[in-house]
């Protein structure tokens, strides 16, 4: 082969490699679900109210059978398929979670205790609760836990058999049996990313119920990004 042919081939190969690397980085390594911003326009220290719902499925994704959280966008009021949200540092965060999913026993019933909230309780459909027994009674759907700040809230589920057999079938849920859980906690004063997870083994079809949605950001685990 002559020199121009060799150099030409080389350049093409080089561009292909660079293009391939850029594609992989952007498409696979940096891609992720969107972040719902509760911090915009809120001064640090001011309270924010965030709203989530937990669904027995996620029909807007390519995993229709995976359980999933949705977060409400404060500006548009739309339910976003993500588990990433931003709150201002040091503010009081008032959380509302709509529990549309049925009950499952916790692997460790210790997580049936509410910790880290203001007052040490959560309100289930308006009445304060500090402990939920997920083994003896059908009471816990999922949990909302931020280990970095010691927060653990078992999210109550509809408790009757018929409710559990007739959960909503289309995400994001707008109707169907559900509970409303509210609680408040104080966001950390320093900025950083704090992961949150569910502790109920709701990754069905995975060993110990902890694969799939339990280890995929955008479904049952995510991050609270504290910004100052």
């Amino acid at each position, binding site marked *: 082969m002559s020199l121009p042919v060799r150099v030409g081939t080389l350049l093409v190969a080089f561009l292909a490699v660079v293009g391939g690397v850029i594609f992989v980085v952007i498409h696979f390594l940096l891609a992720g679900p969107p972040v719902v911003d509760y911090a915009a326009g809120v001064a640090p220290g001011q309270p924010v109210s965030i709203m989530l719902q937990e669904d027995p499925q996620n029909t807007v994704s390519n995993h229709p059978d995976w359980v999933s959280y949705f977060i409400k966008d404060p500006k548009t009021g739309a339910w976003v398929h993500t588990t990433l949200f931003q709150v201002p540092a040091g503010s009081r965060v008032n959380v509302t979670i709509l529990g549309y999913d*049925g*009950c*499952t*026993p*916790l*692997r*460790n*019933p*210790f997580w*049936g*205790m509410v*910790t880290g909230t203001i007052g040490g309780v959560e309100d289930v459909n308006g009445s304060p609760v*500090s*402990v939920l*027994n997920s*083994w*003896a*009674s*059908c009471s816990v759907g999922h949990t909302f836990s931020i*280990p*970095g700040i*010691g927060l653990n809230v078992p999210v109550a589920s509809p*408790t*009757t*058999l018929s409710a*559990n*057999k007739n959960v909503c079938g289309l995400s994001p849920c707008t109707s169907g049996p559900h509970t409303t859980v509210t609680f408040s906690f104080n966001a950390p004063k320093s900025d950083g990313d704090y*992961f949150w*997870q569910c*502790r*109920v*083994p*709701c*990754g*069905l*079809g*995975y*060993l*110990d*119920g*902890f*694969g799939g949605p*339990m*280890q995929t*950001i955008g479904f049952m*685990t995510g991050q609270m990004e504290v910004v100052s």
Partner: protein
Amino acid sequence: MAAETSAPATGAGEREPNHGMRIFIIWLVLALASDLLIWFVLGPHLPPGDLASAANGQQFDIKVMSAMAAPVMVFVLIQFIYSLIVWRHREGDEEDGPPIHGNTRVQVTWITLTTVIVLCLFGFGTYELVNGPGAGAGSGEGPSPIVNPPGAELTVAQQMAPYSASKPLVIQVIAQQWRFTYRYPQFGGFETTYLAVPQNQWVEFDVTSIDVIHDFWAYQLGVKADADPGVNNVAYTKPLQLGSITVRCDELCGLWHGAMYDYGSVMTQSAFQSWATASQAHFADVTKMLPPYATTYDPTEIKQLGTVLVKLGLTGAGGGYYPPNDPSQP
């Protein structure tokens, strides 16, 4: 062809200096200096510190190993640097080097010396593992440890007997994705996320997992033990000073392994007792819901499930990977 050139006539005119003696003297000075530095200057600051007996033992081992390794390292480095400087190729010299194929005395000496050093290290390591204040090395010894402090409590009944300052404190470490929880069977079996240990008392960690393999690493205590599902992995340490403890998971356990850490502290015995009593009361409601204390747990089969859950077809918290009718074996 290079192979056919004749051996050079070295040392014809000037007298060859005694390279061996030169290297030996440089080595002696540097090895002595580095050992003194390691022992007296660096030694007291070596990790993992001296908060607990196991940590102390590890620090001592690292110090001794360093003191033994330094002369070896210094020797090899000096030998190389000396050779590279003294015997570098000079411009215009196209002859080959002297045809030295080996030297039995040097070879035998080297092999003997390295063997002796290695056997000494083995003897030292084994002694340190089973004797002295750092016995057991703070590492997980499995369900039947060979190195036990006095009064070790290995049966469930022993572990659940009420707390006494004269016996080892039993703490069960339950690893789960992605948090350690600590159960104190001598205080009614309450479970908490905070690791508190008393000063000057043997602590027995019974480490287990309810899902995947984790590793309980209490850095300042010098304790590291894998948390395997279905296995009770026992490790001991004796906290010697007051201070805080960092606990990290040391075995990759999934998505949030990197964020699986928490903190604890060494307290005085009286502070510990009042903390434990207060915690026992605080967690009383949730303690009632916990499974009876045992050395391992299997959440895929739960006896006390409620009727609704059973009617939904659930027998435990297994996630349904293995169907519920799969036979579980002893």
